[in-house]
């Protein structure tokens, strides 16, 4: 393993058991840090507003990203468009801690993702299934997250991705050489990556977080109980009536995800939560998770 990959995977390991929050200005970043976020994602608009805008969504203005970096001492992440390696170069030049090559922004390349091994900076990428996760890891991603429908407040697709990856890993563990060859071909991944997965007893080589649709402490704990390593929260926090209280409750819930008594306490009296959009109400072409190849 290259030195950089080890360091970049290592930073993701430091984020484990933590919550990464979307913020759109320095003030929100401060609230997130005070609530105990282990990192923030610097954005111009939160996904719910991007979804509503119907416009092309791009990397945030570096000025905003820098302001947020100066405001907090925890790691700062930022998003670039799928395949837009120049946005990634710019983010690396800013000195950001992590890049999210994200389907929430409008994709720049309909065929390829960024060749992430060409960068020193770490990348997190979304994955709906095992093949997608391993393709991204093969390209150099040092962290994976689910691709739940961002900005909906509906947790069902994130849950779907986490469970599908688990089921597919279980299948891979049972596969013989011929089946491995076939699965690798079908998913456009190397057989070696599957053999490595088998040798590790089914443990993915990088950290896997839940993302997309997390709106409550219970949603966050659900993802943790399903086996993810930590949680991204996007629109849920700052679309609620009491962001600081909700942010704190979600952080606590990720630590004590297995303790129903404590989850009861964290879930109580949070005030009005974000509006929700049921994913079933979305047309297929409105689903962000279909972006990425």
């Amino acid at each position: 393993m290259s030195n950089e990959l080890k360091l970049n995977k290592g930073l993701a390991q430091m984020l484990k058991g933590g919550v990464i929050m979307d913020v759109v200005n320095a003030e929100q970043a401060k609230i997130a840090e005070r609530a105990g976020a282990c990192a923030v994602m610097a954005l111009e608009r939160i996904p719910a507003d991007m979804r509503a805008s119907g416009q092309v969504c791009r990397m945030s203005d570096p000025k905003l990203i820098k302001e947020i970096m100066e405001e907090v001492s925890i790691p700062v992440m930022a998003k670039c468009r799928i395949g837009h390696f120049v946005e990634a170069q710019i983010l690396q030049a800013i000195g950001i801690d992590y890049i999210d090559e994200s389907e929430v922004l409008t994709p720049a390349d309909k065929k390829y993702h960024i060749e992430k091994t060409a960068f020193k900076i770490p990348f997190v990428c979304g994955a709906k299934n095992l093949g997608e996760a391993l393709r991204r890891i093969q390209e150099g991603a040092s962290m994976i997250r689910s691709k739940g429908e961002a900005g909906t407040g509906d947790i069902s697709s994130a849950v779907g991705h986490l469970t599908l990856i688990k089921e597919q890993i279980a299948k891979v563990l049972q596969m013989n050489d011929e089946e491995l060859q076939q699965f690798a071909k079908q998913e456009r991944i190397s057989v070696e990556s599957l053999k490595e997965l088998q040798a590790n007893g089914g443990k993915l080589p990088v950290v896997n977080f839940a993302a997309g649709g997390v709106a409550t402490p219970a949603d966050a704990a659900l993802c943790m109980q399903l086996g993810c390593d930590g949680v991204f929260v996007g629109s849920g926090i700052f679309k609620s009536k009491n962001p600081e209280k909700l942010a704190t409750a979600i952080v606590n819930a990720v630590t004590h995800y297995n303790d129903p008594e404590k989850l009861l306490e964290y879930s109580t009296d949070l005030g009005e939560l974000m509006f929700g959009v049921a994913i079933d109400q979305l047309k297929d072409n409105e689903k962000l998770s279909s972006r990425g190849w």
Partner: protein
Amino acid sequence: MTVKQYTVGVLSLQGAFKEHIDLFKLATESQHEKFHFLEVKTPQQLLRCDALVIPGGESTSMSLIAERTKMIQPLVDFIHSGKPLWGTCAGLIFLSREIVNGRPNQKALGAIDIQVKRNAFGRQLDSFESMLDFSGFIEAVDQFPAIFIRAPVISKVLPTEYNEEYITMKLVDDQSPIIRSENESVNKSKVELLYTLDNGLVVAARQGNVLVTSFHPELSDDCRFHRWFIQEFVAST
């Protein structure tokens, strides 16, 4: 005859706690009846421990979660009991007496009489791995892969009855306020600086039963550091 058993806890509020437990298990494979490793999230779990490790993670997150989940006082009590402690990276920050570049609501437990500077090397692009020679304090370990991720360093040994002030890093233009521990110093040993990088930055120290490292032995696949902690700090008690 019954063998003495030890329970080593890893504070599991946030961060890379599973990695520590995995390496400890590897390091004690041949004596698994003797050592038991436990994820610690509650005061009750902490009471069962003979030693505690505070892992890497985000030091602000860890401190805030500890405070909210009422773990600060139990941790202070654990420190006062004199049982062995080891902090890596964020754990080093949490165990220190003073934190430079800390956040206003962050706590310093004060288990070791040092001042620490957070993110001393810079951001993620400045993270690095280096093969270091630890044979000065761990027998025969002259090549160890030390991984530094947004790492802190020990900037000062603080004056106590047992220690003279010793500044290891000049803090230039650092205007940020210093977080000081509210807890009294109870450590009656002298601070030993275990390892200094070529550029003069101090990245490992011990004070009696308390060990701190700004790098992450738990991220390597080399369990010799963990084995040393068990032999030198835990099983020697």
